[in-house]
């Protein structure tokens, strides 16, 4: 058994009014990958922020390489060799790869007055060779895919000679092949004796890449298990503290329902090429494909968020002209973005304002005043109906968990009485327990006659939820599958069908 690299004991951290962590322990060995799991709000991030000096603990000890340490700030953590790769990448888009990695530590020449770009690029190149990643030091970060940017972050972390590397949901934005590459890098790092704390919601990954799993719930330490000796079901029940119910409800047949949305020959530059599809009443239509296949672009084009070059959209058989999101909303379309914080939520505003924002017309008196009481009543109804966990409807939305934020966004569109709902990655960043509730909600909505487009990168999710699945690759629709003949293999075949093969 390898040596213990880092030990956190009895860590507690309180914020005014809430105990975020109470007596947490964590042990990381050299050369292992330790998964840290728990529902959103379990305290994983807080614990890692304590470790990296962003927060200060109220009590407890951190023992690192045999010595008790203090971590007053992130600089101190870096100096000790503790680095974290955050979920949101923190790179300067207009600087090159090498400039990003050595930011603040640039090699100088000429009595320290000038930057030594050559040395900088050489140092970066040497670093890439050491960890065996393929990156060009001189390339601009804005030109890189998310996966490549993540590798830059990893390289940056390792350039501090990190012994402890914390990864927060590193695969959230990666495709399967990119995940494979990431896992290769992780294996190499392990062989070099680096200890990795791996935070993820994706259960199947834990089995592949981690050695041990530490589970947290509601700010408390639940337990640590060897990955080999446990089951995913066991981990999930540790996380949620209950057995999760089977959420698959029988799919209602919608095959003969009328078409509510008919998209014909939609084109937008190279992003969308000849998009044709129909959506029926009460149907859940899955959109599958790899990252960058153009699924989000389809959604944004239909919703009027991006301009289109050509194409026709029919709603209930009528040709409509959608030039802006407000046109789309008036035609009964609602869009739930994959990036809730940027595109879905009014982060500083309260739950009721977020529910009402798309429907202010209904909450406006003839003189322009808001009908505050009506807003309150409707918002409360939505909160009850969707079982949003919030103390009151006056709570600021940013204080809710991901799953509950998502429910509020759903509530916004239900309040607007939208008939066509486009869900873009509806369960991204949402914990397992809440995922089940979102699925249940989607099924309910469909059986009530709402029509749903569901874009998702999680194949099991697409397969389980959809009546039909449309698969895209490089801006084109490459296949359509009905519920009976959908399988992960079939989807992947279409999803990788590049132009040369299909034509």
């Amino acid at each position: 058994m390898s040596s213990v690299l880092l030990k956190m004991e009895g860590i507690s951290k309180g914020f005014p009014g809430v105990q975020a962590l109470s007596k947490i322990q964590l042990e990381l060995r050299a050369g292992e990958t330790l998964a840290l799991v728990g529902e959103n709000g379990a305290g994983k991030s807080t614990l890692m922020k304590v470790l990296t000096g962003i927060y200060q603990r109220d009590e407890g000890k951190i023992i690192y390489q045999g010595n008790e340490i203090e971590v007053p700030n992130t600089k101190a953590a870096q100096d000790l060799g503790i680095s974290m790769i955050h979920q949101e990448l923190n790179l300067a888009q207009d600087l090159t790869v090498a400039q990003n990695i050595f930011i603040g530590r640039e090699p100088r020449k000429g009595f320290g007055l000038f930057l030594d770009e050559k040395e900088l690029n050489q140092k970066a190149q040497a670093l890439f060779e050491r960890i065996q990643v393929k990156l060009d030091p001189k390339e601009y970060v804005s030109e890189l895919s998310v996966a490549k940017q993540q590798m830059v972050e990893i390289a940056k972390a390792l350039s501090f000679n990190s012994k402890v590397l914390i990864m927060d949901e590193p695969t959230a934005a990666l495709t399967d092949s990119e995940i494979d590459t990431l896992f290769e890098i992780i294996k190499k790092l392990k062989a070099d004796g680096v200890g990795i704390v791996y935070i993820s919601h994706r259960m199947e990954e834990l089995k592949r890449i981690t050695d041990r799993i530490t589970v947290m719930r509601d700010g408390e330490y639940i337990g640590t298990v060897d990955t080999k000796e446990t089951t995913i079901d066991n981990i999930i029940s540790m996380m949620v503290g209950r057995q999760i119910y089977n959420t698959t409800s029988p799919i209602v047949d919608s095959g003969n329902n009328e078409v509510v949305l008919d998209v014909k020959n939609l084109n937008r530059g190279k992003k969308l090429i000849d998009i044709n599809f129909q959506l029926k009443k009460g149907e859940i239509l899955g959109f599958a494909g790899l990252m960058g296949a153009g699924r989000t672009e389809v959604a944004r084009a239909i919703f009027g968020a991006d301009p289109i070059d050509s194409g026709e959209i029919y709603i209930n058989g009528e040709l409509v002209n959608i030039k802006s999101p407000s046109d789309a909303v008036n035609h009964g379309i609602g869009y739930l973005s994959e990036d809730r914080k940027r595109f879905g939520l009014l982060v500083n505003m309260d739950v009721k304002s977020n529910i009402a924002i798309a429907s202010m017309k209904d909450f406006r008196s003839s003189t322009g005043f808001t009908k505050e009481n009506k807003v309150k009543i409707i918002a409360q109804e939505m909160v009850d109906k969707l079982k949003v966990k919030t103390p009151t409807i006056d709570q600021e939305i940013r204080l809710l968990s991901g799953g509950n934020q998502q429910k509020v966004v759903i509530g916004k569109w239900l309040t607007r009485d939208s008939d066509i709902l486009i869900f873009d990655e509806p369960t991204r960043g949402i914990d397992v327990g809440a995922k089940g509730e979102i699925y249940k909600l989607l099924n309910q909505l469909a059986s009530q006659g709402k029509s749903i487009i569901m874009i998702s990168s999680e194949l099991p999710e697409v397969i389980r939820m959809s009546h039909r699945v449309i698969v895209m690759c490089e801006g084109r629709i490459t296949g359509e599958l009905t519920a009976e003949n959908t399988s992960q293999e079939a989807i992947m075949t279409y999803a990788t069908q590049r132009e040369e093969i299909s034509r």
Partner: protein
Amino acid sequence: MNPELDNTEAVKKKIRLPIRSGALQQVLAFASLIVLILFFSLASPNFFQFSNIVGILLSTSVIGILALGVTFVIITGGIDLSVGTAMTLCSVMTGVFITFWGFPTPLGVVLGILFGAFAGFLSGLAVAKMKIPPFIATLAVMMIAKGLALVISGTKPIYFSDTPEFSQIALGTIIPGLAIPNAVWIFLIMAIFGYIVLSKTVIGRYTFALGSNEEATRLSGVNVNRWKIIIYSIAGLFTGVAGVLMASRLNSAQPALGLGYELEAIAAVVIGGTSLSGGKGTMIGTVIGALIMSVLTNGLRILSVPQEWQTVVVGIVIILAVYADILRRQKA
């Protein structure tokens, strides 16, 4: 050990403590205002006199009304640099309508105010439709307004000598026997108007929504361009009122005046706790902010502090006010 908390329980606990952040901020600003008043009252017997207090209120009125308008724009996450010179242009236009063209005073006043709304409308158009960043768009409008004010007036003041009732708008006393000039009441009315629009109407809701997350607001189906133009126009309406008031107080439209007023207005908004990054702010805060600035200048003058030093002190107060706000936010 900690008792096991149900998830909802934990959430419930979380919210109980933070008093609505806006409210706390107002309390803080209000407390500073009281402290300042107490300090100057103790330092000089001349400060807390009825006539001096009325003087402070009178000198707050124009800047205060400008600040109320700018508050809307700042909450959307924008900025309006044009209000100072646009105010002057409104003064000049009011002079043109009443003195040059001989319009009846009430009509001239209404047109002068609407002219302000029109200037705001143009800024809004540049920001919303042409996608020019608010700083640049309103900087341009500031220069255009400054130039036009000089061109239209022929660089000379326009006097309201034929219409003695015009000066009564600002300086008359509507309540007989109470020596409080109308300008003060107009400030109060505009503050209440601003408060109502910001907190009770759909416009106010969209003002906060735009500042909180413009893209999410757009994707909620809100016609953000239209509302932005409306909000800038409302800010312009306040500018128009300030312009008429300024002209009335001086009984003349002074075309060279006005530059720098926009910065004082922005300072008042910021001292009042409105965040320059948008999404947060109150009208009451702005009123208090404007009062703090006037009390400071007035008090320092009474204590015979030279004018150049007064400016230095106001600058320091701005830093302290914003820093206190930042400190408080970090704790929360």
